[in-house]
Structures are given as C-alpha cells and as structure tokens.
C-alpha cells in the first residue's frame, strides 16, 4: 500500500493515452457526429419543405377542382336555360303559325260563304222572276223591272 514508481508509470501511460485519444480518437468521431447532425437537420428541413409543398399542391388542386365544378355547374345551368328558351320560342312560333293558319282558313271560309250567298241570291232572284213570269203568264220585261228585281234581290 505504499507509493512508488507505479504512480509515475501510471501518470506517463495516462498522458500517452490522453494524447492518443485527443489526436486520433476524438476528432474523427466528433466530426462525424457533427456531420450526421447536419445531415439530420438537412433531412428534417427537406421533409418540412416537402410537406409545405404538398400542402400547397393539395390546396391548389382543391382550388382547381372547386373552380372546375363551379364552371361545370354554370355550363349546365346555361344549357338548361338555353333549351328552355328554345322550347319557349318553338312553342311561340308554333302558336303564332297556328293562329295564322286558323285566321286564313277562317277568312277563306268567310269568303266562300259570301260568294255562295251572292250566287244564291242571284239564283233566288232569277227563280223569283221565273216564278212571277209563270204567275203573270207574261214575260216580264227585264229592262222595265230591273229596278224591282234589284230591290227584291237586295231584300233577299
């Protein structure tokens, strides 16, 4: 349990070991650790950036989708209103055309009726004259009785 040269021997080996550790062990390990730290920090940074990018892209996609959907809805709406208008127009045209045809038919009928009336009237007049002739047994001078006949025709 006495102090002897071992103390000095241990001090020397201690100094050599510390020197070796300082020179050949510590620097490579600590520099590699620092490098790894940097790498990990970079990796985390990159991950953060990628996440932000992803969020941005997602938001953008959502925006585009929303816009597209709106646009599609607008187009459908437009088409619907346009078709309604077309139907309405066609209906109107048909109605007008029909009315026109009805009117013209009515006018024609009217005309027919008038001409038939006239013809009938003239026939009735001539029949009346013939009848009268028969009754009087004499011919009626057409010229003398023209006035009378016209008056009669007008009265019929």
């Amino acid at each position, binding site marked *: *349990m*006495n*102090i*002897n*040269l*071992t*103390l*000095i*021997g*241990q*001090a020397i*080996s*201690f*100094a050599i*070991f*510390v020197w*070796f*550790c*300082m020179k*050949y*062990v*510590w620097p*490579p*390990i*600590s520099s*590699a*650790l620092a*490098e*790894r730290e940097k*790498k990990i920090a970079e990796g985390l940074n990159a991950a953060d950036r990628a996440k932000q990018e992803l969020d941005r892209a997602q938001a953008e996609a959502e925006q585009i989708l929303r816009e597209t959907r709106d646009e599609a809805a607008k187009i459908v709406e437009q088409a619907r209103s346009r078709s309604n208008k077309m139907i309405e127009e066609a209906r109107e045209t048909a109605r007008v055309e029909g009315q026109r045809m009805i009117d013209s038919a009515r006018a024609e009928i009217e005309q027919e009726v008038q001409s038939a009336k006239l013809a009938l009237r003239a026939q009735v007049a001539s029949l009346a004259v013939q009848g009268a002739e028969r009754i009087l047994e004499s011919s009626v001078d057409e010229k003398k009785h023209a006035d009378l006949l016209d008056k009669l025709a007008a009265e019929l």
Partner: protein
Amino acid sequence: MVASESSASSAYINHHLQNLTFGLHPERGWSLAHSGADVEAMGFWSIHLDSMFWSILIGVAFLWLFRRVAKSMTAGVPGRTQNIVEMAVVFVGDLVRNTFHGKSNLIAPLALTIFVWILLMNSIKFLPVDLIPSIAALLGVEYMKPVPTADPNVTMGMALSVFALILYYSIKIKGVGGFSRELAFTPFNHWALVPFNLVLELIGLLVKPLSLGLRLFGNMFAGEVIFILIALLPFWIQWTLNVPWAIFHILIIPLQAFIFMMLTVVYLSQAHEKH
C-alpha cells in the same frame, strides 16, 4: 485450530492485497518481491507490475476499439460498435459542453479517456475475486491484484496528472500574477487577510488531487476487501452476500468513473475561469 484458521485467513487476505512488485531491493538488487517485507524494503524504487499491466492492457484495448471505430466512422447509419462508442462520446461531450465553458481541444478527450478507462479498470471487479490470481498462480506468478484502481499509485498517478493540468491552465490563463492574486485575495479581498486566504486556498487546491485519487481508491479498495472477505465464507453461503454486493457495484463502478471525470472537468473549468 481457530488460531491456525484465522492465520490462514489473514494470509489469504494479505496475499490478495499485495501487488506483484518489482523493485530495487537493498540486498538483492532489482528483483521481484516475494513478501510484504521485501516490498517494504524496496520503498519508492519499485513498480507494481500487475497494476501497470492491467491498466495499460485496458487502456490499449479501449483506445484500439475507439480508434477502430473512429477510422471507419460514418455519418450514415451507425453499426453496433459505433453506436456504443458514439454513446460514450456524446455522453462525455455533452457533459463537457455543459460544464466547461472555455475553448479547449484537450478537455473532452481527456474526460473521455478518464471515464472509459476508469470504468473498464473498475469493471475487472465484476470478475470473481480469485479468478485472475488463480490463473496467474497456475502460470507461476506469485502475486496478482488485477483491479488497477484499487491501487493508490494508479489513482493518485491520474489525480496528480490532473493536478498538473490544473496548475498549468491556471497559470496559462491567469498568469503567475493572476493565479497568486487569486490565491491571496479570495475569498476575503483585504491585504490583512492575505495569510488566511493563502492557507485556505492552498489547502483547497491541494485537496483537489487528494480527493480525486483517494475517493476512487477508497471505493475500489474497500469493495475489493469486502469481496475478499466474502470469499472466506463457505462456498455455499457466499452468494447471499457477494451477489448483492456485486449488484451494488454495478452502481458504484460507473458512478466512481463518472465522479472522477466530472470533478476533473469541474476543476479544469475553475482553472479556466478568471475572477
């Protein structure tokens, strides 16, 4: 019967507590000591071959392992060995960064060497107390005390080296004048109290290496003695004592290594501080 048994026990204990000593014997010249009396006669001019052998073997093994890892060190995914080495380096590095605020390339490797080396030297204690001495006896070696840190020469050798560093940095950072002023004028900054301060501070300074070296030595030596005493019991009862004691040493061994390292860093940090 009892007397012979107790003398056998004390012979066993003495044998286990004696180092393999090589020294300058006044009569035989440079030779191996064969008894306690030989060691006494050799005095200072002797060396403990077993302490030196184990301490250097372990130091070389530690540095070989760490150097191998350092050479193949990669910043990528670390392997198993690299992981362990890195854990030690990061542990020590963080401690030094938190404790020592100066700039020094020496402190961190110094702390790493102290921590791992002492930890490994202490760890020889986990081996059965008779294992290495028995193997040595088979090989014809008379004495063998394999735990280097249970040798005060080893612990004081390291403590005094740390002390030399404390003095070196104190003088380098503060200058001879600054260092003497610090010793003379703290804690009481008055000329009349200079002698008092000097006594106080010098004792404080000299206690540093003593507390460092003797704490480690005391813990390891006491643990060793207790293991030896337990080994004297009948073999079938030994486990009731040596198992708890060994489990307790799982705590003590890293703790003592840690304390030695931590105090070294603190002392050197104080040496770097200007008041």
